[in-house]
């Protein structure tokens, strides 16, 4: 056994007498000299802002108030506006939430888009209803060292039974806040449930919007117009500039941007609760609702295996659709409807639905004939009728092939189904 002790642990070889500290300093000095020659890069080191009155100065600059916390004061900005709280319909969403819970709409502004521990949420906007008044409370962090008290204040605004509502908060905002609590060695606040509006918005409205960002959805769906809005990509730099300069006024546009995000979520929540979610239950929708939205909602139900509600949405959508200009959308929804019928075990209705699609002669008619054949073969046990349907599918597939548009799914299915049906037919007496 040998125990070789590291002799160079605190000293670099050949630098007798020089501690790591000295070595570091001299190396750094030479690096600094090199940088001074490239003078453009040099910035003056930040001077920490004076501690006394910092929160007060910030509050004054942004029109907020100072709130004492268990640690150091932070700044809170409050906005009130009239938005009715009529959210009972949320109980019928594809992923239902309990409308009786206190709703906390949450949106954060951060120093970066990454999710690592160096990304700091410096502004959390929390929206909630006090009767029919919608209150947005924005917690603003005056200085990086004030975070402990900030997290206390935030926790106090999230009731343990709350339903959080966010836009992409499941993968961004909330994990980021969890990170902050963990970083401070604390448990993240408890809450009841979390409704992330992004996946719903994507399913329901994306088809008629350029993208599913909140800004696009609020404009397209709620008619919100933002004037002089600060693009989200500029938010980090604003806060970092504030930290270095102490100019709180820099943050006004960030607060406005954040408030609008929270308010837009409230508006979307109402559209969902009042116009969309009830369709699944009643099968009735107000005439203003776009049929494509209903189709998307139906598919969202279908993904949660709630086929009854899905069917109601598809029915409502089809009622609203007419005219050749919408033939494709009609066919798409009709197919989803036929699938929902199959899932619900309504085989005859399903077969009828597929046949109706097939007889329309749309782009997926061959596919629909195949489904008809499938139902006739397995449910009706009528190989002759099944073969007739499969033959129609074959004829259509061959025609598309002549036009150079092969449908390989159909061809592959037919390659197995046709011989099998012929065998069955041959084996059947009569």
């Amino acid at each position: 056994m040998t125990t070789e002790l590291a002799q160079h642990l605190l000293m670099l070889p050949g630098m007798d007498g020089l501690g790591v500290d000295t070595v570091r300093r001299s190396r750094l000095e030479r690096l600094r000299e090199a940088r001074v020659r490239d003078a453009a890069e040099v910035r003056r080191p930040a001077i920490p802002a004076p501690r006394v009155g910092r929160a007060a100065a910030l509050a004054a600059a942004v029109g907020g108030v100072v709130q004492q916390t268990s640690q150091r004061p932070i700044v809170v900005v409050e906005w009130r506006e009239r938005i009715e709280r009529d959210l009972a319909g949320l109980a019928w969403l594809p992923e239902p939430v309990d409308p009786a819970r206190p709703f906390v709409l949450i949106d954060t502004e951060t120093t970066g888009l990454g999710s690592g521990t160096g990304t700091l949420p410096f502004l959390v906007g929390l929206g909630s209803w006090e009767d029919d008044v919608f209150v947005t409370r924005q917690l603003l962090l005056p200085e990086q060292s004030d975070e402990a008290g900030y997290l206390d204040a935030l926790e106090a605004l999230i009731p343990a039974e709350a339903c959080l509502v966010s836009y992409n908060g499941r993968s961004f905002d909330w994990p980021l806040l969890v990170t902050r609590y963990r970083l401070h060695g604390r448990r993240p606040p408890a809450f009841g449930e979390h409704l992330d509006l992004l996946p719903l918005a994507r399913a329901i409205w994306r088809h008629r919007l350029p993208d599913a960002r909140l800004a696009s959805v609020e404009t397209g769906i709620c008619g919100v117009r933002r004037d002089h809005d600060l693009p989200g990509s500029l938010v980090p730099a604003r806060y970092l500039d504030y930290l270095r300069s102490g100019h709180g006024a820099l943050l006004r546009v960030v607060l406005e941007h954040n408030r609008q995000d929270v308010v837009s979520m409230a508006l979307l929540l109402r559209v969902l609760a009042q116009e969309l979610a009830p369709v699944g239950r009643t099968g009735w929708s107000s005439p203003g609702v776009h049929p494509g939205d209903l189709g998307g909602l139906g598919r969202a139900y279908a993904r949660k295996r709630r086929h009854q509600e899905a069917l109601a949405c598809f029915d409502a959508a089809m009622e609203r659709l007419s005219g050749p200009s919408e033939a494709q959308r009609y066919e798409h929804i009709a197919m989803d409807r036929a699938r929902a019928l199959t899932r619900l075990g309504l085989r005859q209705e399903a077969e009828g639905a597929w046949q109706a699609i097939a007889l329309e002669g749309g782009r997926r008619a061959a596919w629909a004939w195949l489904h008809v054949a499938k139902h006739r073969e397995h449910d009706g046990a009528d190989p002759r009728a099944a073969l007739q349907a499969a033959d129609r599918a074959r004829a259509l597939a061959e025609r598309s092939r002549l036009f150079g548009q092969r449908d390989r799914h159909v061809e592959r299915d037919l390659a197995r189904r046709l011989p099998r049906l012929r065998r069955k037919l041959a084996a059947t007496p009569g």
Partner: protein
Amino acid sequence: MRLHQPMTALEALERFLGEPGVAQALAVRRVLPAQAPTFAAVPEWLDQRLLGALTRRGISALYSHQREALEALHDGLDIAIVTPTASGKSLCYNLPVLQEISLDPAARALYLFPTKALSQDQLAELRDLAALAEMGLSAAVYDGDTPAAIRANVREAGQVVLTNPDMLSTAVLPHHTKWFQLFEQLRFIVIDEAHTYRGIFGSHVANVLRRLLRICAHYGSEPRIICSSATIGNPGELAATLTGRRFHVIDRSGAPRGERHVVILDPPPLDARTGVRPGPHWLAYRAALSFLRAGRQTIVFGRARVAVELMLSALREAMREGRGPIERIRGYRSGYLPSERRAIESGLRSGEVLGVVSTNALELGIDIGALDASILAGYPGTIAATWQQMGRSGRRQETSVSILVAGAGALDRYVATHPQYLFEATPEEARLDPENVHVLLAHLRAAAFELPFAPGEHFGAAPADDLLAFLGEEGHVRQADDRRWYWASDNFPASEINLRLGAPENVLIIDTGPERPRVLGEVDLFAARVLVHEKAIYLHDSQQYHVDTLDWEERKALVRPVDTDYYTQAELAVTLKPLEVFARAERAAGSRQHGEVMISSIATIFKKLKLDTHENVGWGQIHLPEMELHTTAWWLALDDQAASGWRRDELDAALVGAGRALQTVASVLLMADPHDLGMVAQVRSPHAERPVIYLWEAAPGGVGMSARLFDRTDELVSGALDLVAHCDCEVGCPACVGPRGESRLDGRALATRLLRLLDAAVAPAGGLGAVAAA
């Protein structure tokens, strides 16, 4: 005589050595005697289930080094294990880790491996042991290939997480709050193959470990560290520099060894005047054939993919001539599919595969069982790698054979003529410098991103305040009024670090061969000019690529895979200016010094050299801008007396020749790649106003090699003298003083004369490296 005749490895060796043409290449033959195992009892505190697992594996007692490792860890020490291939090293960490988990299922361990393949192999081994112990164990690899679906589960529930330093740096540490269960309960950090963490890579990894330990401290855990390393000269120091801790070094293996015959073949020059030598492949092929025909399991290592493919097809061809079963000889390299590799590995273990021709992909710990013969076509670059490759053969009972066929390069020749380095004490040291200021600052940024720094807080062995103030000037961090330093930027600093590179600005190497071009890797800007200039042959994973275009502005090199029989070597015109002397000491004929220097260099031309013989077969020009590099260097300055009595052109030739020899020996001592150390010789240095030989480090800021060369100058000089004085060429060759230029001077004699002067006061000529001249 029948071609295929079963015989023992030793008989096959005797027959091979008797073949015509082999005897005159024989440089060394040593017999390493068999060693009986040294057993030690299993510690009584070991969990019964683990005891059961050992019993089921047929293990009733541990080897002494395993017991020592267990006891040292039990006593709370950090350990560094240095034992040969196949000595049961993984039990040294798997047993204590499983023991800890058996006592407390909340306990966690983190394993670091330099490659992904090793992680997979070790995971299988660990799971196997846990299964034998009938212990529930959640262990998983977390790397770039881990499916997103199971990542969260690994983070939350993985009791043992196996990963690599790159993944740790970019995907784990910056997200440590997602790993809080791991960091709160981290009991062991296992750093396997630690000797691979040297040079710039090691300097980075040391800083990644500083970040790791800082995060552990934040969560209140104090993990013990287990390092394992191949045999090198400074394992304890390496582990200490990497981690900032002190280690209990375990370097006596208790594992049994069968008798091993080690042979070094050093083919004589084809032409003594020019010093042109044959490559190693023909002799390696003939050696391999002898063992394969005798029915002995054989592994052949080649340095490049082309060499591997050439030897493979020649062996298959020859075995078919003798009606041998061709499918029993396989190739193995990193381009193969994992399933294919697994099949070859298990084929080797079961004996179905008789021979394998491999690149160094099989050098590190993958389990292939023990073979009869290992043949190394060329020196693998380090003594540690030589033993790892030779360790692939070695039966417990029967005699095994290892053959090193020296190639034409200087390093090959040096090792072939200095067998004591191989058999006695290895002179190799793994060097790294965690204080390299570029590397240090890059990781300090990442560390500040991970957690704010308290005033006076240490990063490594010293407080970080000055460095943080410097970063503050850049605007990446800022000091808040609580005097703590906070990350204040929207960048993600860990993603800006490439652990394999020294400088922040890199050239991307893009393979345009496949349908969808892919990024092969990066090189730093300084090195890019000599590695990926247009028409260069760039070697990656043993595959050659031709550089079609180098877009200097876009920092992109477009390459495509080729198979050629040459490589390229670029020449740099270098001017060197010392900036600061860190240390200086007088010695024979002058002084040794080391310090910081500025290198200005411009790439001028490149040469095409034959892979086998290093013969020059063509050249081209390079048009790229001049660049400056701040780095560290070691140098020898001649005093007036030593510098007098030379003709100027003679002194020039002597300095260049001696410099090249010093460079070769330095590469051996410090396990450096040929690109890691540059050489400049000046007849009259503008700064010292006297003749000087410099060796400078190619990594910006250096990795501590120059400082160490300063300490080992005597060894360096006598080694160089020995190399030059005893070369079997006539007037200088590529293997001693470098290729002959235009001059008609006797470079070897001149360099010898100079090195004798420099060596005079230290030891008689030959010094440390005295061997009988060939």
